[in-house]
């Protein structure tokens, strides 16, 4: 079962990808755009660009999830000192950096299409950027902090997770409120819901597949290292 988790999840993700692409491009009407002034779906300010929404939101929700996954796994690691929890925290951060990059790039394209600037410090964009920076910091620490990397990184993940509500309040109460998009999912038109859900499921399957694959490879690396050390001790290896 465990062995097959990655191929199965990846295969489901691939199917989900095809399905969501189909739903996004074939079933949703093209002319629906997001009218930022009226804050509702209407008009045609976005045309084709509106389709980025499905992948953008899915990516960003994965990014948020990853922050909590690695925060909670890091608490478990510091508490129980279980290397498995540490592997999960590290894997989910690694993967989330990629998803976060996708969020920021798609968000930026959306901003260009909707508001005609590449970056406008829209609260959610800001929040994604800050979380992404914490994750990139985590990866750097992991890579360069030597023997104590696991502890330092765990600390960073926990502090980052606790900081989320503060970042949320901060960007919400920002003194420069820009074009907001409130209550995204609830205001979606009925025909936009299936592709939205399909891409959510797809990206979560991908996330799970990548994290499990990453955890397994870390574990294998450790095993190889230990075997090599044993071999060296026994004099079998040079």
């Amino acid at each position: 079962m465990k062995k097959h988790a990655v191929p199965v999840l990846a295969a489901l993700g691939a199917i989900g990808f095809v399905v969501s692409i189909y739903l996004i491009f074939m079933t949703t009407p093209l002319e629906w755009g997001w009218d930022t002034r009226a804050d509702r779906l209407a008009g045609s300010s976005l045309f084709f660009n509106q389709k980025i929404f499905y992948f953008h939101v899915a990516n960003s929700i994965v990014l948020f999830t990853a922050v909590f996954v690695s925060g909670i796994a890091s608490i478990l690691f510091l508490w129980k000192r279980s290397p498995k929890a540490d592997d999960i925290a590290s894997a989910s951060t690694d993967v989330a950096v990629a998803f976060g990059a996708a969020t920021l790039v798609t968000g930026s394209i959306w901003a260009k299409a909707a508001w005609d600037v590449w970056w406008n410090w829209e609260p959610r964009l800001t929040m994604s950027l800050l979380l992404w920076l914490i994750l990139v910091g985590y990866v750097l620490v992991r890579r360069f902090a030597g023997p104590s990397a696991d502890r330092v990184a765990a600390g960073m993940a926990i502090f980052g997770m606790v900081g989320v509500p503060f970042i949320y309040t901060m960007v919400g109460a920002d003194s420069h409120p820009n074009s907001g998009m409130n209550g995204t999912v609830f205001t979606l038109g009925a025909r936009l819901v299936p592709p939205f859900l399909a891409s959510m499921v797809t990206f979560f399957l991908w996330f799970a597949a990548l994290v499990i694959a990453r955890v397994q490879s870390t574990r294998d690396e450790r095993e190889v290292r230990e075997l090599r050390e044993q071999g060296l001790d026994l004099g079998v290896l040079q």
Partner: protein
Amino acid sequence: MALVRQAARIAWKDLRVELRSKEIITTMMFFGALLVVIYSFVFPNHNDKVMRWSVPGMLWVSIAFAGTIALGRAFDRERENDTMRALLLSPVPRLAVFLGKAVAMAVLILAVAVIVTPLLALFLDAPLFDHGGELALIIVLGAVGMAIVGSIFAATLLKVRSRDVLLPVILYPLLVPLFVAGTETTSALLKVPVDLETAWYWIRFLGIYDAAFLVLSMWVFESLVIE
């Protein structure tokens, strides 16, 4: 009560070392002053509007830069003589070690602000002392928050070779809310007319931020700093 006494003793130890050598305090204050001079040149347009708009940022960037240097240097001192181990082995709870360190760090960071704030007021003609009480409050809260988070990570990075670069890499993303709160309060205080409501909103925000991270730090210090 014993905890407070022990923490105070550790803080006082750090500060006494500093007061005798004056190494960090003098270099950091000079560094802060240099920053202000550089700001005055790179933002040369000294009209009132630009000043009100840029001084808050200058103040908090100086605190961030000088604070990071102070944190790194203060913990280097423990590493050079391998005294961190002695400190951790001393018959006081680890919590007291952490609190003592954080208090000493907060005092060092405040020393920078004490130099930078009047210099900004002088060179850029910023009316920073019109609401001195609120400004002092937000600076103290900012220094405390930075000292709390900074002490934890400076202590965990003690043995890491690239700690000088990694400390800001870790601290700045985590401290963004703190810097935003500080900047927003300062600019609200510089507004004409002064916007005390916004200022107090961010002061409360930073107070809660400090409290949350203090509790969290007290909780994780022991498992993070194990040597």
